[in-house]
Structure formats: structure tokens, C-alpha cells
């Protein structure tokens, strides 16, 4: 063998001994990758869509009731890397496969939130050892918010902010809630850039200070939080939010949909609904109270009177939430329409019953309004005309 052929042979394995050893280890790890009990076949979201990937799923630190949920390590095959903030679905001890149905495999975001027990996000990268390992954190909450009439959501993690406060803060004349918590969510735009809508993701950059979230399993006494701190650079790819407990606003928040600021004002939904034709028969009934203060159907069509509450009920079959709307009839400027409609206080009791109370504004007398109701699918629609009297 000639000297330069031998040199070339040696250089194939690396320029120096470190590279040779590294290449040999890479080969061994890659070759034996699936022989490790820690091996799992995971499903990971990349810019090009969901794909299978091989990982070693490794213990990192012990879980304890004294601290938050801990992160785990995942190690990809040598030379394979994914950005921090990527979603990764890792099979758990119950099965070797993902708990996704065939349809859900095409788009795992169609999996109901309560079934998403295997979802993680990459939250950090450990460069310390020879083999890069990524830290992953289990997702446990689907954060939902409203932006410009659209409901946005992101699956992320609730973190404890170790708030050893009393939970209430008393000032001179009032008491407010004072509990702190944290959320970690992927910076979806940073990770998936302009592929967001194709992948079915929402842009988490739109979460800003004072954004309110409902984070609770308790729809009787829901807990709401307000964002007080946004950290989106440590590390890049994850947005860490500090949230402070905020009062539940029964007028504006919707516990059934776990959405804060769902109602713009009482009865008016903050989310765009597009009625789609099918106008149902007239289903709005005038209601009144009997001597036991029970709500009964009124035998006559009543006037709205200033300072007095009137009741209406819809007899629609729809089980979807109903949206009630009042429109001023006549030729008025936009300002006047907004002013007069605002003078009528609409309170929604349950899905089908509302009350309307005109304020004690004398200018309201004689004004006529169109009261309409439609369900959130837009399939049913019904309306009546009302006049305000003294």
C-alpha cells in the first residue's frame, strides 16, 4: 500500500483521534439505537409537517411534590436536531404506539384536549455532553384566547410560580386576588415561521400583557389569570408567561368555553358569528312573572318601560349558545345607535332567557328596537320589534 493511499484510508475515519472516536461512537449509537429500552418512536412537528423520529427517552431529574413537573431528556440519532419549541408526541408506558387514531395521525391537533396525554414540547438543549440531548416538558393545558373575533389556542404547560402568598391582597377599601403562576408555551412563529396556518397552529406572539386566561377545571367558581410578564428569549422558541390571578368576570368570561373576555358586554359575543341563511320561525316569547316570582309566558305583547325589567325567552331547538342582539330601528347616526343600544341593559340568564332593562333615560321613550336571536352556528334566526315607553 502506498503512503498517500494509507493516509487517505486513515483520514476517512477522521482528521484526528477525537474525530475517529466520535465517528465510531456515532456509528455504534446509530446502529444500536433501537436496542435500548429507552428507545421510543415519537411523532414530531416540523416545518414540513408531522413526522416519525427515533429518540431515546431518558430520565433527567426526580419528580417530587415539592416542585413543578420535571423535564425529561430526549436524544435523537446522532446529527439529528430539532428547534426548541417543537411539539413532540412520545408514547407512554401504556402502549408502544402513539395514542392517536388514523385520522388524528394526519393532524394530531384534532385529538381532543382531554386525550392529549403524550404531548411534550422541547424546552431546552443540553450541549454539555458529547451527545446533544433535548429537554422536554409535558404539556398539560390548552390555553385559549380571543383575537379580533377569532378564538386562538395553544397547547402548553402550566408552571408553578412558587407563590407563598395568602392568595389575597387587601388594600385600604378592597381585597383583590393575588396568586401567581406561570405558563410555558412554544413561540410558534419562531419555530414554524410562516407554516403556522398550514400546520393548524396559532401565533403565540399575540399574547401580550394583560391578556386574560381561564385556567380551571371548576366551572362553578372559575379561576382567571392575567399575564403580567412575557419572556420570549430565554430560550428562544419558548414563551414564558407569568400570570397573576384575576377576578372572574361573570359578565364577560365564559366558563363553558374556558374563554376570558368572550362577551363584549352582556349578551353580546366577542367572537364573529356569520348567520348562514336558514331563518327559523318566530321563536321569541314575551315573559312575565307570576305571584311566586316564577317566569311564565305573557299573554300580551308588552312595551319596554324605562327603569323596568322585561323578560324574553327563545323557544329554539338549538342546543348551541344563542346570541341575542338589539338594533335600533330608524334613521340614526352610528353614534346615536351605539348610545341608545347601550342604554338597554341585556342580561342573559341561561341560554334561552334574557332580560332587557332600559335605563332611566327620557330620550329612550318612543324609540323602537329590533330584538333578534340566532345560534352560534348561524342556522337559526328569529326577531321581534320592541318599543320603549314610559
Amino acid at each position, binding site marked *: 500500500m502506498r503512503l498517500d493511499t494509507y493516509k487517505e484510508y486513515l483520514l476517512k475515519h477522521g482528521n484526528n483521534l477525537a474525530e475517529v472516536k466520535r465517528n465510531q461512537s456515532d456509528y455504534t449509537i446509530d446502529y444500536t439505537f433501537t436496542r435500548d429500552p429507552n428507545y421510543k418512536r415519537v411523532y414530531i412537528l416540523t416545518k414540513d409537517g408531522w413526522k416519525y423520529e427515533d429518540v431515546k427517552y431518558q430520565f433527567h431529574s426526580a419528580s417530587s411534590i415539592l416542585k413543578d413537573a420535571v423535564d425529561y431528556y430526549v436524544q435523537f440519532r446522532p446529527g439529528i436536531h430539532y428547534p426548541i419549541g417543537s411539539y413532540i408526541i412520545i408514547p407512554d408506558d401504556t402502549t408502544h404506539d402513539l395514542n392517536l387514531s388514523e385520522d388524528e395521525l394526519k393532524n394530531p391537533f384534532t385529538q381532543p384536549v382531554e386525550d392529549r396525554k403524550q404531548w411534550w414540547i422541547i424546552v431546552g438543549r443540553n450541549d454539555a455532553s458529547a451527545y446533544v440531548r433535548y429537554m422536554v416538558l409535558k404539556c398539560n393545558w390548552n390555553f385559549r384566547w380571543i383575537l379580533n373575533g377569532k378564538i386562538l389556542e395553544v397547547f402548553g404547560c402550566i408552571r408553578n410560580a412558587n407563590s407563598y402568598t395568602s392568595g*389575597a391582597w*387587601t*388594600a*385600604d*377599601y*378592597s*381585597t*383583590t*386576588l393575588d396568586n401567581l403562576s406561570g405558563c410555558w408555551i412554544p413561540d410558534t412563529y419562531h419555530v414554524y415561521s410562516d407554516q403556522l396556518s398550514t400546520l393548524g397552529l396559532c401565533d403565540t406572539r399575540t399574547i401580550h400583557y394583560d391578556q386574560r386566561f381561564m385556567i380551571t377545571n371548576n366551572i362553578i367558581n372559575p379561576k382567571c389569570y392575567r399575564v403580567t410578564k412575557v419572556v420570549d428569549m430565554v430560550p428562544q422558541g419558548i414563551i414564558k408567561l407569568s400570570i397573576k390571578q384575576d*377576578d*372572574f*368576570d*361573570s*359578565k364577560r368570561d365564559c366558563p363553558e368555553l374556558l374563554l376570558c373576555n368572550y362577551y363584549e358586554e352582556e349578551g353580546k359575543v366577542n367572537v364573529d358569528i356569520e348567520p348562514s341563511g336558514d331563518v327559523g320561525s318566530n321563536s321569541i316569547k314575551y*315573559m312575565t*312573572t307570576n305571584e*311566586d*316570582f*316564577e*317566569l*311564565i309566558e305573557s299573554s300580551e305583547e308588552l312595551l319596554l318601560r324605562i*327603569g323596568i*325589567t322585561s*323578560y324574553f325567552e327563545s323557544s329554539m331547538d338549538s342546543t348551541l349558545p344563542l346570541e341575542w342582539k338589539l338594533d335600533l330601528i330608524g334613521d340614526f347616526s352610528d353614534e346615536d345607535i351605539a*348610545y341608545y343600544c*347601550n*342604554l338597554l*341593559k341585556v*342580561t342573559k*340568564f*341561561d341560554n334561552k332567557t334574557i*332580560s332587557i*332593562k332600559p*335605563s*332611566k*333615560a327620557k330620550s329612550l321613550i318612543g324609540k323602537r328596537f329590533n330584538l333578534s336571536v340566532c345560534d352560534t352556528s348561524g342556522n337559526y334566526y328569529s326577531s321581534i320589534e320592541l318599543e320603549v315607553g314610559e
Partner: protein
Amino acid sequence: MKRDIENIKRDLEDKRNNDIIYKKAKLMEIFLKDPDIQEVLGKKDPRPLNKYVDPSNPTQEELETRKEIIEYNEKIKHEQIIPFLKLNGLQYEVLNFLMFDINDSDVSYYNKTIKTQTILVMCLIHEDEMDTQYGIVRTDLLSYIVRDLLCWTNALGMQLKLTNDFTDIIDVKYYCRTMKFVVQAPNTVRGHMGMNNKYDDFSW
């Protein structure tokens, strides 16, 4: 002169025992009678009860809804006009308050039988309720009504004079407007309102 402790005879029900008690009752009566105060305080209407389809045999769901409505109706009964200045606890149903109290703040330099009384009326409004449908801030609207009811009237005997009407931020959630009315009154003189105790007589 010593008070005869052994033979005290009091009528605890008589509001005229003390002019502050009496005047507070009067103020409460005035505020409660006003047709607009409750409206401007944003008092919520009770919800009508749900009707049972079969009154003799209501379903579990109907009973639960009824219970919920009754609980709500109980909660909104929370008093909003309060005859003392108080700290508000955490609750959601009632957010706005009209509170008042009376202080004896001074006596006349020349005639100690005449005192100066200060009536403090405080309109405490939650930040979410500051706007009204009338396009007027709720604290301002309430203070207008209070001023309309009291200023330059003889509601508490002598003419009430408004000396202060100032706004304040109570904390992150509450705003308030405090009005201070001043009235001259007899300083617990025998034979006048607030006098049933012979030892209250002024003497040297």
C-alpha cells in the same frame, strides 16, 4: 358630679338618644327613598325563578336551577348603601357602594354649645363599573345625586353646606368620590335632640 351608675334607665331603641344615630337614620331614609340611587349604584335585579314543568314533581335539574337562582338573589341583596365607611370583601355580585358617616369635628370658639358636624359621603365604584350607559362616569353621577339631595337643604336641621368634593384612587380596582358636608348643630344641649341624659348638661 358623678354618674349614677346604679340607676341608669335607657331606651336603646330610641334613635334620638344621640344625634349621630338619628341623623344617620335620616340620611339612610333619604338615600333609600331616592328613585335613582339604586339604579346608578348598578343594583342588580333579582332573577325570576324557573317554573317547574310539573309543580308537584320537579326534576333534579329544575331544583338545582331554582337553588342557583335563589342563591344568586340572596347574594345581590348585599347592601350598597352603608351607614359607615367600610372595607369591602371579595365578592362579584355587588361592586359599588355609597357609604356615609358623621363626625363631630369642632365646637364653636365663642359658644361651646354649638358644634360643627361633618358628614362624609363616599361613592366607591369598582373600575369595571365606572362607565354608565348615560356617558357619565358613575362616581360623578352618584355625587351629583347626593349633592342634589343634601346640599343647601335642611335635611339634618341647619343648612347643609358642601365644603369638599374630591376624587380619589382607593387601590388598583376602586375609585371613589368623597363629599364633605358641614352643618352647625347644638352640642348635646339639654332639651334638644341628642339629649336624654341629665348629666350631659353643660356646666362648669
